C-alpha cells in the first residue's frame, strides 16, 4: 500500500514484505490501515473514541496474526474491514450491548434520509437532508477509499492546498499528483454512488 497506488497487487507485495520481516513494510501497513480502521469503528460506535481505538487495535492485531492467509483477492483495507465488523460485534457484546453500533453499510438513518430526498427528487442537499447524515455518508465513502486518495481529496478540497504541495506531501511529481487526484475523484464518485441510493447529482435513481 504505497503512496502511489493501492491495489490488491501492491497490497500483496506489502504483505509479502511484512511476512519476510521487513520493518519498513510493517510501518507502511500500520500507517495506512490503523487510522482507517479507527474511523471505520468510530463511525459505527457513534463517536466512542476509546471503543474505536480498542476495536482498531484488536483488528490490526488479529489481521497480523492471519496475514499469511491474505490472498490479495480484495484490497488489504477491504480485507481488514471484514475483521472489523466481527470485532465490532464482539465489542458490543462484551460491553453488555450498551453501545449502539451500526454495522450496515447503509445506515438506516442515512438511507431513510436519502429515501426522503429521493421522494422529493432534485432538491438541494443542504436543505433537504440532514447535513449530519450526509457528512457521515461522505466520511464512510472516504473510509472505503485508499488512504492516499482520501488524504489527497481532503488536502485539495478542505485544506485547499495547491496540487504542487499535495505532490510534495505524497513524494510524487505535480503531474502524478494531478493524475492521482483524478483517480481519487473518480473513486469517490463511484463509491458514493455505490453506497447511497442517490445519484451523485443529488437526484433519486
Amino acid at each position: 500500500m504505497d503512496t502511489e497506488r493501492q491495489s490488491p497487487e501492491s497490497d500483496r507485495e506489502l504483505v509479502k514484505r511484512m511476512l519476510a520481516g521487513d520493518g519498513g513494510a510493517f510501518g507502511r501497513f500500520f500507517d495506512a490501515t490503523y487510522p482507517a480502521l479507527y474511523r471505520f469503528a468510530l463511525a459505527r460506535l457513534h463517536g466512542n473514541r476509546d471503543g474505536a481505538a480498542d476495536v482498531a487495535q484488536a483488528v490490526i492485531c488479529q489481521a497480523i496474526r492471519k496475514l499469511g492467509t491474505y490472498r490479495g483477492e480484495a484490497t488489504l483495507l477491504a480485507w481488514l474491514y471484514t475483521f472489523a465488523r466481527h470485532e465490532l460485534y464482539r465489542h458490543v457484546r462484551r460491553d453488555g450491548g450498551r453501545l449502539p453500533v451500526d454495522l450496515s453499510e447503509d445506515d438506516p438513518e442515512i438511507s431513510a434520509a436519502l429515501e426522503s430526498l429521493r421522494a422529493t427528487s432534485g432538491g438541494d442537499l443542504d436543505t433537504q437532508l440532514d447535513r449530519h447524515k450526509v457528512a457521515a455518508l461522505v466520511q464512510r465513502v472516504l473510509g472505503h477509499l485508499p488512504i492516499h486518495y482520501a488524504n489527497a481529496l481532503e488536502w485539495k478540497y478542505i485544506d485547499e492546498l495547491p496540487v504542487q504541495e499535495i505532490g510534495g506531501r505524497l513524494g510524487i511529481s505535480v503531474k502524478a499528483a494531478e493524475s492521482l487526484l483524478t483517480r481519487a475523484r473518480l473513486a469517490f464518485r463511484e463509491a458514493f454512488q455505490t453506497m447511497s441510493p442517490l445519484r451523485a447529482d443529488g437526484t433519486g435513481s
Partner: protein
Amino acid sequence: MTDDGLSELLKLAGRRAVPDEHHQARARAAAHAEWKRLARRRLWRRSLWASPIAAAVVTAVVLPAWFSSPPAPTPGAGHAQAVAMADIEVATLQMVTGAITVTPRNGDATRATGAGLRLRSGDRVETAADSRAMFVLRGGTIVKIDSNTRVSLDRGVVALDRGKLYVDADPQANDRDVVVRTRLATVRHLGTQFEVRFNGRAVVVRVREGEVAIDAAGTKWPPLAAGWAMDLSADLRPERDQIATYGSEWSWMAELPRPFTLEGSTLRAFLDWVSRELGRRWQYEDQSMRERFDSIVQRGAIEGLTAKQAMGMVLEANELSFRETKEGLVIVRR
C-alpha cells in the same frame, strides 16, 4: 457530480477523525509485537524445513527478543510516552490469554486490552474465568495472574484484591522492593518465585524458590523458604506446610512462560530457563555431554509453546531426550 459538488460534499463532511497519539502509540506497540511474533514464527518454520531434522544440531527456539527486553519505544510515540510517564508507568503487559480488562485510576472506562499495553500507577487489571495475563514490572520482575483474578498496580506494589498471582523475581531484576499486598498480609520477596492466593478470607503464600517475608497486622513472620506454604486466615493464625515446588499446583503459570530468547543462546541457558519455569532441577546423564551443552548454539523460534513443550522440541532437534525423576529432569541421549 461536478468538482464543485464534490468540494461541497467534502467541506460538509469536514476533516476525518484522527486517533489520538496515545491510542495510536499503544496500537502500534501491540501490532508491532504481533508482527514480530509472526515474522519469527515464519522464520523458524523456514529454517526447520530448510534443514533435515536428522542433522539438526540447530534447534528451535522461542520467545521473541522484544519480549525479553524492556518495551522498545514505538515510532511516533514520543508524546504518548510523555503522557504515560506523567502517570507513572509501572509495568507492561507481555502476554494475555483470553480477554482481560484494564481500568485506569482516573475513572476512564474499563477496556478490554492485549499485550503491549503500558500499565500505569493505579491501573486495575482483571482476568475472567477463561483468561490469564503476564506483565513485567519496570525493574524486570515478572508477575503472572491466573483466571478470576483482580490486581491493582502501584509503584513497587501489586495489590491482590482476589484470585492468584505468581511472582518470578529473576535475580537480575532491578526491583527488589516489590511487594504483594492483600487485605490480610503483605508479602515481600527476597529474590524468589512465589505464588499468593487470596479469596477475601484467607491468604495462602507458596514459595517455589528463594524465600519471602510476610507481614500481617504488624506481625513480621519468619521468612518462608522454598518448598513451604503458609496459610493465613482472618484470625491471623498461620499454618505452615511443606509443598512440592513442581507439579499440577504450579501448572497454571506454565501457560504464561517467562520471556526467553534462545536464538543464539546455548542449550544450557535454554535448560536453565526450562528449569525455572517448571520448578525442577536438570542434570546430564553423563558428564561427557557437558561440552555439547555449552557450545551448541540454538536457533529458531518456539513462540507460543510452554516450557515443557519447548523442551521436547528443542531436545529432539538436538537428538536428546529427558526423563523425570524425583530429583528433577535428567537429559539423556536418544
